[in-house]
């Protein structure tokens, strides 16, 4: 008999909401770091505008990613039993707090909306996401969190 996998409690149409949506804020925050670098090098304001939109968009989608992640985390004790799930959640929580701070920094006008604080925060968030993102990938591909078996479980 096949062993049951840890369940993604927050599922829609058979898909785990957390895993499906998680790439959106990751791409937004990585993108914001890149557009921050572009602004820093060129002083062309439109790059900083892109950063501000990417941060805002990433944070809005993060609300759903966090909710789905918390539902999964508390919905199956086997997930709570994985120490990497704790690191993944806490690390991403830190990345989100830094990104909220970063969005406010980006609401300043012109150069100091990016350099130096905004640029540093964007870079630190990308570093955190590299770690927590790969842990997240391990949770799915190694610990099979939310992976359905062929018989429907």
């Amino acid at each position, binding site marked *: 008999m096949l062993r049951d996998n840890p369940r993604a409690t927050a599922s829609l149409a058979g898909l785990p909401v957390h895993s499906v949506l998680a790439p959106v804020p990751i791409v937004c925050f990585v993108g914001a770091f890149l557009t921050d670098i572009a602004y820093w090098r060129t002083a062309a*304001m439109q790059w900083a505008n892109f950063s*501000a939109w990417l941060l805002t968009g990433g944070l809005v989608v993060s609300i759903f990613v966090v909710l789905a992640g918390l539902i999964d985390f508390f919905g199956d004790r086997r997930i709570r039993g994985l120490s990497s799930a704790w690191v993944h959640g806490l690390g991403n929580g830190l990345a989100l707090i830094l990104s909220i701070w970063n*969005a*406010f*920094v980006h*609401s*300043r*006008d012109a*150069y100091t909306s990016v*350099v130096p604080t905004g640029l540093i925060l964007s870079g630190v968030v990308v570093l955190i996401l590299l770690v927590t993102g790969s842990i997240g990938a391990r949770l799915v591909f190694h610990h099979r969190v939310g992976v359905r078996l062929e018989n429907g479980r």
Partner: protein
Amino acid sequence: MNRVGASVLALAVALAACGGPKPIDPRRQMGANPYLPPIHQYLMPPMHVAKIVPWGSAMPSVPAGLQVKALANGLKNPRSLYVLPNGDILVAEADGPKGPINRPKEFVMNWVEKQAHSKTKAGNRILLFRTDDAGAVTSRTVFIDHLHSPFGMVLVGNDLYVADTDEVLRFPYQTGETSITTPSVTLTELPGGPIDHHWTKSLTASHDGSKLYAGVGSNSNITENGIQAEYQRAAIWEIDRATGAHRLFATGLRNPNGLQFEPQTNVLWAVVNERDELGPDLVPDYLTSVKDGAFYGWPYSYYGQHLDPRVRPQRPDLVKTAIPPDYALSSHVAPLGLVFYTGTNLPAAYHGGAFVGEHGSWDRSILNGYKVVYIPFSNGRPAGMPQDVVTGFLDSKNEAHGRPVGLAVDTRGGLLIADDVGNTVWRVTAADQP
């Protein structure tokens, strides 16, 4: 407000509260040598606008020896005033054009700005009031309709010039006319949309009538819309009346308004709105004589050569040439109206100096401005501290009944004040005179 809005607001208040220096006494920033505190850049500026409540039976207050009456009310965003030689009073009803949303921040800013302004849709037209010997309005007509955010007005001979936000228009005017339907001629195009951040174009004419002067405000707080958007802005234009050709008379003036020639020395003066978001007491707004060819700092520096770290690339070559303005009015008071008093109706204490209309602050926790002040002049220069003349636009609960904008002196010597939140024009005279 919904729950999300409430929590966003709560977060904003918390962020605003946890950072930022306490505002200092505004009197330390009035006059020739204002105190300039260190720069403080917020995570979230303390956006604080007075809640708007109707005047009801309340009135502005004036010191002993003066009286104030409503010349007209029920207007649609009266912003600026001009008195024709026959005594007729022109009132420009205007609001700014709608700009694009370039950043998420602008959603919040637009919302805050809406709270601070009248809910009445502006007329975007000029009204004409005719008054009797007691200074009361006897007739009220639409003088020029269908304008595009009009602000500046000046008559030279039989040519009436109106500064829409994007062009200077010329209308033929005959003494006594109460309505102009003749199509206008464009004298000069001015920098307008699509952003048009500072849209009020103040206008005056040289003594001999050969030149017009137009105030063209910046297209941003501090170049956040890109330096390209600032082309020929933050400047006072000198426009040749015969040809419409223009040159930049003075630059680096973030948002110059109330252009007026000082009557004794025939020197051009303006009130200027300085930059935001460097703290509750930076940068002081000011009143200054405008020197031909001078650079007053914006955006690279403020109050002379104090560098603004938010502008890139910097221009040390320009900063080296920046001169400080003449007279600080304290921070964020938003001066939009200026008139030198040449009448005789008001008591002698108000002769020869300048009245300034302060629209009032939005980005400091303790409100500043929201009143009309008088600055005594001697030999064409400010001589003494500003004195409060018309107050009471804010009540004891810090709610705003009105906000003063444009000023003018009528042919009987009464001081006129456009109130774009109370939708009223006020008239101040000596207590014992009409």
